[in-house]
Structure formats: structure tokens, C-alpha cells
């Protein structure tokens, strides 16, 4: 599939960058002429993935988050969010709704939210090496005749 546009972003895993990273991906996705709903879906999914890098992968310590976004000819936007943090031992378990390894302030819904707001979600992880989350969203856009 022909890549129409792409961008890469490397940012330190600081919580202040959660808002920046989802805004950056939203600005990029906006070039694909999405509906307000589609844009919000992408923003929410990216926010979940980036937050997981900060909260879980690096556990609020230093580290880098690698974001790689592409827009394809068929209207598909693909966003890869990668960390070199602690990794996930059991990805299947981690993806279950309400599963969390963090305390009272986390609901364990991040992956469930990412799944429900995207068309496809893949999670690749290696304990001790890091995690890559790939969010795929088909932008039908404002000009779609339904």
C-alpha cells in the first residue's frame, strides 16, 4: 500500500508529554480529513498507549517513547508507539478488561479503550526489552457518502 505521509517523534517519557503526543498525532491525522469522532478516537487511543509507556514501561523513570505514524492511500492511519521499558510477560492477560498491575488510580481499561476506538490493535512485547503497540484506524472521513 502506498504511503502518502508519515512522521516520527521521539520524546522523553514525561507525563507532560501525554497531551503533546496525542495533540501531535491528532494534527497529523487531521491531514487525512477525518470526522471529529474519528479524530477523537485516535487521540484517545494514542493517549492510552503513551501513558502506558510512562506509567508501566518506565515506571515514571527516564526513558524514550518512539512514535511512528503513517497515512496510506486507502485511508488507513497506522500509529506505532514503542518503548524500551520493562515489557509485558503475559500480553493476553494484560489486554483483558480491568486487568491492572498498578494501584487504586488505574482502572485496567487502557487496552480495552484502544481496542474499542481503533480498527485493529497489535501488541508485541518482550520482557526486559520493551513493547510496541500498533494502532490501526481507517479514516472514512467527512466526504464519505455512507
Amino acid at each position, binding site marked *: 500500500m502506498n504511503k502518502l505521509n508519515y512522521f516520527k517523534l521521539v520524546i522523553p517519557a514525561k*507525563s507532560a508529554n*501525554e497531551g503533546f503526543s*496525542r495533540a501531535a498525532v491528532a494534527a497529523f491525522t487531521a491531514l487525512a480529513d477525518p470526522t471529529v469522532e474519528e479524530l477523537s478516537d485516535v487521540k484517545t487511543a494514542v493517549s492510552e498507549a503513551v*501513558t502506558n509507556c510512562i506509567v508501566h514501561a518506565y515506571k515514571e523513570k527516564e526513558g524514550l517513547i518512539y512514535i511512528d505514524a503513517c497515512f496510506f492511500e486507502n485511508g488507513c492511519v497506522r500509529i506505532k508507539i514503542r518503548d524500551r521499558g520493562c515489557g509485558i510477560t503475559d500480553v493476553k492477560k494484560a489486554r483483558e478488561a480491568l486487568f491492572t498491575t498498578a494501584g487504586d488510580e488505574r482502572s485496567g481499561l487502557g487496552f480495552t479503550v484502544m481496542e474499542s476506538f481503533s480498527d485493529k490493535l497489535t501488541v508485541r512485547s518482550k520482557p526486559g526489552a520493551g513493547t510496541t503497540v500498533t494502532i490501526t484506524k481507517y479514516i472514512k472521513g467527512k466526504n464519505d457518502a455512507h
Partner: protein
Amino acid sequence: MEITFANSVMTASLTGEIDHHSAKEMREKIDFELIKRKPSKLILDFSGVTFMDSSGVGLVMGRYKKCSAIECRTSVTGLRERDKKIMKMSGLINVVEFI
């Protein structure tokens, strides 16, 4: 965010974007007042919220637990449709009043 009191009802009017970063300050402010004033009801008003992810659910969940410990009821108002959808993915709908 603004916190107001009427009799023993505490209302926290949340504004802007709720994520893991911004939720921290909201949580600290709400919990400080909760402990100090021990209201009988906490209303979390989301009508000024322009974005939230699962951190919004965590914020409600955490406050619900704190409130339960001091026999305070928790209520959530002003959620946008998409945020209501996220809240519903949790079990909160069974224990917290959503208006």
C-alpha cells in the same frame, strides 16, 4: 477545577483534558477537601471536560473508594456520550450514580 460546597454536598467541577498527567492535581485537590470537610455526597461534574482517557475512570474509581471509607456517596454528571462509553467499560456503573 472548582470545588464548591452546599450543605454537606461537595461538587468538583472538572475542566479541560483529563489524562494521567492532569488527573494527579485534580485528585490531590479533591482528596484534600474530602478529608477536611467529610461531605455526605461528592458530585464530580464533567461538563467542562474536553478530553478524557481511562485516567478519568481511574479518577472516579479512586474517589469512589475514598468516599466509601467516609460514608460519602459518589455521583458523576455532565459526561459526554463517548466518555460515558468509557466509564461503562468499568464496573463503576453499578456503584456510582451517573446522571
